[in-house]
C-alpha cells in the first residue's frame, strides 16, 4: 500500500472533490441573490444571533459540567476505595450506549414536573447525563494510567486528597479532557430531538431547531436559509480546522481498545 502509485491518489482526490460538492453547494447558494447581506439579514432580522447564543450557553455549560463531574468521579473510581465502587461504576458504564429514545417519555415527564421546559438547565441536565458514561470511561482509563506513587507521594507530603487530585493528577489528564470536551461539544451542539421537544418558545430555541421555523418565515427564500445553515456550522468547522487531529481522536476514542 505504501507503493500504491500516484494514480491511486489521483482517483481518491477526484472522489474527494465529488464528496465535497454538497458543501460547495451550501456555500454558493447561501451567497445567491443578496451575497453577504443574506448573512447579516438572518443575524439581524431573524435573530439567529440569539439562537446561536442559546446553543453556546447550553453547549459550554454541558461541556464544563461533564468535565467536572466525570473528572472527580473518575479520580475516585480509579484511586480511592469505597463500598460499592465496582458495582456503581459498572452500572454507570451500562448507560454508555442507551439511545435517547429509550428514555424520551420519562424525560418529558421530568421536564414537566420540574417546570424546566424552555430553560437552559432543561437541556443541560439530560445532555450531561447522556454524555457522562462515555466521559467517565475515557477519564478513568486516563487516571488508571497515572502511577499510584504520584498520589501517594503527594498525600504523604501532607497535601490533602483533594489538593493532590486538583493540583497534580487533574492537569495530567489534559489530553483526555480535550478529547472528552470535543466529543461532548459536538453532541450538544448538534443535538436535535430533545431540543425540538423541550425548547418550544421562540426565545429559547437552539440552532438545530431554527431551520424548520425559518422555512416557515422565509417561505422559500433558500439562500437565506442556507446562510443560516452555514452560520450554524461555522463554530464547528472553525474548531475542526484548528484541532483536526484531536477531533478525529476524540470521536474515534473508545471504539478500539
Amino acid at each position, binding site marked *: *500500500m*505504501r507503493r500504491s502509485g500516484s494514480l*491511486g*491518489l489521483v*482517483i*481518491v*482526490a477526484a472522489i474527494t472533490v465529488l*464528496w465535497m460538492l*454538497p458543501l460547495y*453547494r451550501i456555500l454558493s447558494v447561501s451567497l445567491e441573490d443578496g451575497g453577504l447581506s443574506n448573512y447579516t439579514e438572518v443575524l439581524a432580522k431573524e435573530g439567529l444571533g440569539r439562537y446561536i447564543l442559546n446553543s453556546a450557553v447550553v453547549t459550554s455549560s454541558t461541556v464544563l459540567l461533564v468535565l467536572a463531574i466525570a473528572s*472527580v468521579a473518575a*479520580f*475516585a473510581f480509579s484511586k*480511592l*476505595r*469505597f463500598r460499592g*465502587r465496582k458495582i456503581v461504576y*459498572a452500572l454507570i*458504564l*451500562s448507560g454508555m*450506549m*442507551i*439511545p435517547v*429514545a*429509550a*428514555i*424520551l*417519555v*420519562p*424525560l418529558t415527564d*421530568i421536564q414537566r414536573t420540574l417546570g424546566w421546559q424552555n430553560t437552559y438547565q432543561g437541556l443541560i*441536565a439530560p445532555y*450531561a*447525563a447522556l454524555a*457522562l*458514561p462515555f466521559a*467517565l470511561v475515557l477519564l478513568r482509563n486516563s487516571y488508571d494510567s497515572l502511577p499510584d*506513587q504520584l498520589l501517594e*507521594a503527594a498525600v504523604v*507530603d501532607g497535601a490533602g*486528597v483533594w489538593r493532590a487530585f486538583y493540583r*497534580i493528577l487533574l492537569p495530567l*489528564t*489534559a*489530553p*483526555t479532557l480535550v478529547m472528552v470536551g470535543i466529543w461532548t461539544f*459536538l453532541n450538544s451542539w448538534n443535538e*436535535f*430531538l430533545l431540543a425540538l421537544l423541550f425548547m418550544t418558545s421562540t426565545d429559547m430555541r437552539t440552532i*438545530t431547531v431554527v*431551520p424548520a421555523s425559518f422555512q416557515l418565515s422565509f417561505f422559500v427564500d*433558500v439562500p437565506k*436559509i442556507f446562510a443560516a445553515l452555514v452560520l*450554524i456550522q461555522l463554530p464547528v468547522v472553525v474548531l*475542526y480546522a484548528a484541532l483536526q487531529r484531536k*477531533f478525529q481522536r476524540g*470521536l*474515534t476514542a473508545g*471504539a478500539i*481498545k
Partner: protein
Amino acid sequence: MSQAEQAAGRAAHEPTGGPQERKTSRGRSGAGTGLRARRAGEASWRRGMWGPLLVAPAVVLFVGYIAWPVVSNLGTSFLGNSEADPTLRFVGFDNFMWIGTTRPGQLAFRNVALFAVMTIPVQMILGLYFAVALSGRGWVKGLLRTLLFLPVVLTPVVIGYLFADLLETSNGPVNEALRAVGLDWLAQPWLADPMLALPVVAAVNVWMWTGFSMAIYQAALTSLDDEVLEAAALDGASHWQTLWRVIAPMLRPAHYALLILGVIATLKVFDLVYVLTGGGPDSASEVPTSLLLKSLLAGHEGRAAALGTVVFLLAMLLTIAQLRRYGKGDDQ
C-alpha cells in the same frame, strides 16, 4: 492516552518529595508482603469520605436522568389510553402488540434493519478503501483525510436540509444535472417515492459517516506490522490481493467495532429521517425514533414508551456484545 502516560512518567521522575519519594518507590519494588503492609497503611486516606463524595454528583445525574427514566419507561410501556379516555391505564402487552401488528410499527423496525444493511457495509468498504489509499505521509493525503472526515463533525439537521434541497424533485440540482445530460429518465422524486425514500436517506448517511470508518481503519492500519505487508508485496501479490487477503483479515477488531457502533448508531437514527422525509411517504422510511415522537405528540405515551423499551432492549444486547469484547476492562 499514551501522551498522558508519558506525562505521568515524566512527573513521576520529578523530585516532588525528595527522599520521601525515593522511600516509596523502594517500597514498591520490595516483596509482596511489604506491598500488602503498605496497602493497609494507605487505607486511612484512600477509604475516607472523599470517595463517596466525589462520586455522588455522577450518581445523582445518572440515577435521575438515565436509570430512573429507563425503569419508568418500562412501566409506562404497559399503560395505554384512548381518545375517549385519556387517562393512562394498565393494558398489558397491547402496546407491544400494536408495534408488532400495525404497518408503522412493523415498518419502523424493518426499516432500521434495512438501513443497517444499506449503510454499514458500504461505509466500511469505502472507509477501508480511503484509509488504505490515504495511509502514509504527505500534505495531500492529510488534506484529503481532513476533508473526508469533515461530514462526521457537521450537524445532521443541517446536512438534512442541504440534501433535501439537492434532491428536490422539480428543480433540485441533482435532477437538473441529470436532465442536462439527457438522462431525464433517471431524474426521480427521490424523497417522495416510497421505494426510494429509505435508500436515499441511507445514501446521505453514508456520505456523513464514511469518514468515521476511514478514521477507525486508519488508526488500526498504523498498528499493523510493516514486515507482513512488505512480505506480501515481495511475494508478488497485487494491491488488491494484499488488501483483501492480507490487510483486511488483520483489521478484525476494527471491523467488529465498526459493525457494533454502526448498528447502535442505526438504532438511534432520527435527525436525517425527520428532516428529509419525516418518516414518509406513508411510513416508507419510518424508524423507531420518528414513530416514537409521533406517538408521543399524538398523546399515545404508552406506545411511545413501548417503542423506547424495544429500542432499549436491542441496544442492551449490543452493549453486552461490545463489553464482552472489552473483557474485564472495567475490572482494572
